[in-house]
Structure formats: structure tokens, C-alpha cells
């Protein structure tokens, strides 16, 4: 897909809580087409310690409204600076970057989308996209506590939502892989994005039951478009760039001990 460098206009900056915010961006021109799993590289202005762009997943892309959503967790100076942008400001983005999830041929496939922490971000767009194509999906979302459980009302539009929190403040107590849903229901395909240990646990669950599984990785990136070779992950085909060959990988390709 052709990549663009665009100045997008901030239409909304919605602070969900202290740690999370959603930027809704738009443009006077038509936004380029984006697929679930893809990400953007944002330039952060006026943050002296933020030298490189910041990779952020496409959280939602609304073709009709010409809107791009980014769900961002504040973890350092770059994301903090981004949280301060005002409606009407412009942000410079490179997009769309990376590959996408694979969609099974059978419309009756039972699909599970597992998100953890800020890994919720690409799962919302994937769920919406699958829904549009006529698939049904279940979401299994986990976080440390209730404060991490964001955008649940958005998720509910596209499927059944199951939740876990580590402290039990919402849904079942524990990790996503401990949720009772996984004992009750069979799945044909699992998609996941979140902290690496969580994705590995999900991958292990899928692997043991022969369920197809794709994970979305978040390696450190310098460029985001395949030129610096900093973002590699070890695969059966050698070191591959997460920004161009990924971020979505089938677990059979990764050399994870699962």
C-alpha cells in the first residue's frame, strides 16, 4: 500500500482517564485506506527528549466520517506531549504502515480477539472490520484494573465482550488466559495484541489446541517503514522487520517457546 506523509487535523482529544486518551484525527482530503493491524508514525513536536516519531496502531478508521482514531497510553514524554494537543492542531503522520491480519474464508468461523493493556487499540478496528465483512467475534479484554478497561462500549457494538482484571475490579479476576470463556467455547482463530507475556500465553493456548493464531508485535522502531532494520523479530525465516513484515505475525512463524 502506498505510504503518505500527512498533516492531519485534531478533531477530538478525549481523555478517558489519567493514563489513556483517544485522538480523533481528520483531514480536508480523503484519508488513505487503512487496514486493521496497521499503524502510523507520529511526529511529536515540542518535546525535546522525543527525537524519533512514535508508532501508534490504527484504533479505528471511519471511512464515512473520514476519521482516524488513535488510542494512546501515556508512558513517557512523547505520549504525554501528544496527550496535550488541542482540537484544531495538526499532527504530522506517516501512514498506513505495516501489514494486516488474515481473515478466514469461512464466514462462520468462530473468532476470538484478545486484547491486553494498550493492545486493545488494534482489536477495536479489527472487530469493526470483521463485523462489516459479516463475521461474528468475541472480545476477551484484560487489564491490571478497571482503569485499564477502556472503550468497552465501542467493543460491544461489534461482538460479545468478556473481561478480566488482575485485581478483580472488573470481570473475572486473573489473566485473560484464565477466563472461563476459554473452557466453555471453541474457537477457530485467535487474534491478539498486548504485553508480550500475555501474547505468549495466548499463543501457547492456541498452539496446544491447534487453533490458528496471529499476534501483533510492538518492537522498538526508529523509522517504521523498513529502512533502519532496528525492529526485527527472530522468525523461522531469520530476522524480519516488524514494521514491514509485521506487526502481525502468525505464531507458527515466530520462534517463541510455547
Amino acid at each position, binding site marked *: 500500500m502506498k*505510504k503518505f506523509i500527512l498533516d492531519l487535523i485534531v478533531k477530538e482529544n478525549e481523555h478517558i482517564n489519567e493514563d489513556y486518551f483517544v485522538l480523533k484525527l481528520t483531514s480536508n482530503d480523503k484519508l488513505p485506506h487503512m487496514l486493521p493491524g496497521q499503524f502510523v508514525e507520529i511526529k511529536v513536536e515540542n518535546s525535546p527528549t522525543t527525537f524519533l516519531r512514535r508508532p501508534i496502531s490504527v484504533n479505528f478508521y471511519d471511512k464515512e466520517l473520514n476519521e482516524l482514531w488513535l488510542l494512546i497510553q501515556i508512558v513517557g514524554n512523547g505520549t504525554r506531549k501528544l496527550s496535550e494537543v488541542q482540537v484544531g492542531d495538526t499532527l504530522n503522520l506517516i501512514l498506513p504502515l505495516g501489514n494486516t491480519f488474515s481473515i478466514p474464508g469461512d464466514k462462520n468461523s468462530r473468532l476470538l480477539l484478545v486484547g491486553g493493556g494498550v493492545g486493545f487499540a488494534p482489536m477495536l478496528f479489527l472487530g469493526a472490520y470483521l463485523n462489516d465483512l459479516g463475521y461474528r467475534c468475541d472480545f476477551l479484554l484484560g487489564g491490571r484494573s478497571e482503569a485499564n478497561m477502556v472503550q468497552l462500549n465501542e467493543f460491544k457494538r461489534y461482538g460479545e465482550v468478556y473481561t478480566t482484571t488482575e485485581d478483580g475490579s472488573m470481570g473475572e479476576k486473573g489473566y485473560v488466559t484464565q477466563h472461563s470463556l476459554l473452557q466453555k467455547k471453541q474457537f477457530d482463530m485467535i487474534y491478539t495484541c498486548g504485553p508480550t507475556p500475555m501474547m505468549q500465553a495466548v499463543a501457547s493456548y492456541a498452539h496446544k489446541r491447534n487453533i490458528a493464531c496471529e499476534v501483533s508485535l510492538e518492537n522498538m522502531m526508529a523509522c517504521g517503514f523498513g529502512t533502519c532494520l532496528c525492529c526485527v523479530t527472530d522468525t523461522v525465516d531469520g530476522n524480519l522487520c516488524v514494521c514491514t513484515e509485521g506487526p502481525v505475525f502468525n505464531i507458527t512463524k515466530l520462534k517463541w517457546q510455547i
Partner: protein
Amino acid sequence: MADLKVKLGKLQLKNPVMTASGTFGYGTEYSDFFDISRIGCIVVKGITLRNREGNAYPRMAETPSGMLNAVGLQNRGIDHFIKHIYPEIKNVNTNIFVNVNGSTVEEYIEVAEKVNDLDKIPGIELNISCPNVKEGGMAFGVSCPAAATVVREVRKVYSKELMVKLSPNVTSITEIARVVEGEGADSISLINTLLGMAIDAESRKPMLSTITGGLSGPAIKPVALRMVWQVAQEVKIPIVGMGGIMNARDAIEFFLAGASAVQIGTANFIDPTVSMKVLEGIEDYLNRHKFNSIYDIIGTMTI
């Protein structure tokens, strides 16, 4: 309109803006963003004789005004380049240089010989300065006898433009530069990355898998500028300056210090079109100061 053409040895570049090895892929990665044939010369990612997987992840750490990398020359080897990449890029209407690497003198020679046969590659950049590989690389660039041997042997088999890329991780940059000139290099490019490191205080672990890595970006510009200026006092062959160039003003400083051309590296990651902005900015500077040619400013810092 000021004349932007410069000569590196016998080779003429349409303008003095080049892109630095390892930061511009094989060029085509940038063709969505602008017409890459407008660049004076593209230096492609470092190539070795055989496939190299490079170093383990993590390979990158951001620093104040720069970044550390420990890629370790990941590439598929020269034969793969010739078979699969060269056909894709040979019709790009500008100069393309191959960045040649090796663990031994023999490997440098073999890669250079193979590149010599490629019609549309008018020159090589001999990288004797990579800090991220265990064998070879920087070892050749930090010792005068080793640098002399590799340049002499490659010169014997390579007949086109031979540019040698120097490491800043030396006590005397001028000594190495003189040796490289003496052995027949047509031009010198500098600087490669400065050896550095970063530690995560919370986990008490190094940020890079290799512990140390190469620092690039604006953080190294003063060092690069100083080295270009020092080398310019000592050698007659053209110098290609790089290290932290983010805009036209930075580039102008390198010309004033004595560089005949500049390379843009890390800045490409932040603004993929930066090389065109630098090019336009240089043109604007020359016109504004009523210079007829880029040669009117090369090495003209007044003391």
C-alpha cells in the same frame, strides 16, 4: 540559479546531497514519498559477501538528540543484491553507491570485484568503520596499517569511484585520512557512528543486545564537523561530510568546513523527504548570498 554540480574524483553528481548507508534502504523504500532520482547519490545499505542476520533485538535506543543502533550489517549478501535488488534499482536516474563491508580483506576484495561488474553502480563506499560487528568493520578503520591494506587491495580490483568511510572512534582522524588518500581512495566520507551505550536504570540492563552501539543524529554533529574540517586541511581528495545533518543549515556548515558533498542519515527516519528540503535549502542559500556555484562555499569558513 547557482550550479549545484560537484565532482567526486571523476564522477559528477547533479547535486551534493547524498543519503547515508543504512538509513535509506535501497532507495525504493522512499519512492512513495518523493522522486528519489532527485538525490545526488544514494548509498545503499551495507553489503557483505554472505548473508548476515545481524545482531539480536533490541537494536535501537533513543538518546537525547540522537539514537544508538546495533543493527550489525544485516543483509542478504552481495549475490542476493545482484540478483534481486540491483535489477529493481538500476534504472533509477541517479548515482547509486554500494556500501561495501567485510570481516577480512579477502571479503572486501570479493564484494568490490562483484560490484565492479555492475554497470549502473558508479562507485562504492568502503565501510571500514562499522562499530556493530565483531570481526572486521571498525577494526580496519582504527588502525593505519589495517586501513592501508584494505584500501590498497580493494583499489587493485576496483576501477570506479572509491570512497572510503572513516570511523570517528580514533585518536587522530587525519592520520587515517592521509593513509587512505595515499593508497588511492578517490574520496573520503565521514563520520560513521560514534561508539556509545545506554543503560535502563530501572531494570539495570543495557538497552542494546550488544551493550554498545553506534550513536547518530544531531548529538554527533559537532564532532563530525570538527573531523571534516581537520581532514580537509590534510587531504586533497574530495570529502563527503555527514553526522547529524537535519536541515540545509547543518549541511551548509559541512560545506564551509570543507566537504564537497553531504550525506543525510538518521534525519530520513523522522522526515523521509528531508533530503529534498536540504537540497532546496542549499540552493536557496547560494542564491541568497549570490554565489554561482556550490564550489564558492566549500572550505570557505573564514577565521
